[in-house]
């Protein structure tokens, strides 16, 4: 994560960007329960798309299908034009509960993806150390996960995902288990990351503010069975700098609008 606050000009979000990931008519049933129905969605390259919806709307299921961890009952997922049949080197996953190996050091955890890819020890530790530094954890290479705070643990999870240099980053509510201040810092860092790394981000969240704050595109999912009800593309406030977004009128309008459409689905 780049901590610098350099303001590179933001590319305007064009109307029909090419897609890094597309899901075509995805359905997923668990026995009699229909989790996803006929869901099609495009994820523009180099941008961050949020999957937003009330709990139980299948957003994590969709993300895991894209990751190749779950198989759809019908429909296909394409990443860079290739159909997904399982996990692949083009995608890296960031887990809600961090999923760090508690017996391994920060360095080994961050290098895990490279280890599975058969990268030699010296090289993978070099690369992992580089990304540990990127996410701001230098000095903690030999610490164990239980010695870190929740926020720091998720930074390790992020370093692990960045180290394998996948084009698509799949993030499953990555900031939901960290405290509010840390979460805000993460969101700012994430914006810089999207800007500086030429990667496609798919981001699951249940926080409306978070989705509007970080996303180029927000897909609102409604539950039982889950389908895309709306796609919102905030454009106006992206270039105004991280400090100004939260008081931008467009930001506030979009937050209100989304709440209005989700309100009736909250128990």
């Amino acid at each position: 994560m780049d901590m610098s606050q350099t303001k590179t000009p933001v590319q305007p979000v064009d109307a029909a960007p090419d897609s890094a990931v597309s899901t075509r008519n995805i359905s997923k049933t668990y026995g009699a329960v229909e989790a996803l129905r006929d869901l099609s969605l495009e994820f523009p390259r180099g941008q961050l798309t949020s999957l937003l919806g009330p709990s139980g709307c299948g957003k994590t299921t969709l993300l895991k299908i894209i990751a190749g961890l779950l198989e759809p009952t019908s429909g296909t997922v394409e990443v860079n034009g290739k159909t997904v049949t399982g996990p692949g080197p083009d995608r890296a996953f960031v887990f809600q509960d961090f999923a760090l190996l508690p017996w391994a050091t920060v360095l080994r955890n961050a290098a895990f993806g490279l280890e599975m890819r058969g990268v030699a020890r010296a090289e993978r530790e070099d690369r992992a150390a580089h990304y540990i530094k990127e996410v701001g954890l230098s000095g903690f290479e030999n610490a164990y996960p239980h010695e870190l705070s929740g926020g720091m643990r998720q930074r390790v999870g992020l370093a692990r995902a960045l180290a394998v240099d996948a084009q698509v980053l799949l993030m499953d509510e990555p900031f939901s288990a960290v405290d509010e201040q840390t979460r805000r810092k993460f969101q700012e860092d994430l914006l810089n990351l999207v800007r500086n790394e030429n990667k496609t981000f798919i981001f699951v969240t249940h926080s409306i503010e978070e989705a509007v704050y970080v996303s180029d595109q927000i897909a609102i999912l409604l539950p039982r069975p889950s389908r895309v009800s709306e796609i919102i593309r905030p454009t106006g406030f992206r270039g105004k700098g991280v400090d100004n977004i939260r008081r931008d009128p467009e930001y506030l309008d979009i937050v209100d609008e989304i709440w209005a459409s989700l309100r009736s689905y909250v128990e």
Partner: protein
Amino acid sequence: MPNRALLLKILSAALLFGAWEIAGRIPVSFAFPTFLESMSALFRMIGDGSLLIAYLETLQPLVVGVVISAVLGIGIGLWVGLSRTFDWLFSPIFIVMQAAPLAALIPLLVLAYGIGLTSKVLVVCIMAMPVIVLNTSSAVRNTPESMKEMARSYLASEWEVILKVVVPAASPVIFAGLRLGVSAGFIGAILAELKITPTGVGDIITFSRSIADYPAMYAAIFSIILLAVLFLNLLEAIETALFKGNQRGYVSD
């Protein structure tokens, strides 16, 4: 205050041994020697080497039995934990074994395998194995799903998932199972020596009882309980040191 804890431990030991001493002096029973008599018998047996010789014999079936149970038990446990078919096939046997008073098998083992080392090893095995198998299999089954998913999403093969995630994640519980297995193994080893043929420490207990040398009998019993407790505490200390933080790393704050 660490001093208070230590002081109370010493006080607690002094109270129990003091009560033993007083009860022995009254005496509550002709077969109840005082603490000091028992201790002097213990040091006499340590001094003339008879206790050492006895333990060399007692520990044989215990060590052999525990090693066999550990290897077989962890192997079967991993297998049962990883495969639904084997879970269905084997789990019921070990669940029943865990609940059942397996000591009742001893007379049968003696009939089948005689009164030698084989029977005693088998007694240790049937006592120690169920808990090792059940702990291993449930530890394997309870590997956090997200850790396995993590490994798969980073392209681990099924073998890598087992070797690099499942087994290390399960090892604290497997180790705890081993410790419980050793504890049950001690029960088995002593039971074997008291029930099958008196050898080793069991021989000292049985023989000194038959000649009414109660201090020696109490000393032998005291020594085996002390040995078992010290060894199990050592295992627990190793466990704590080895797996420090292991269970805490993946829960969110």
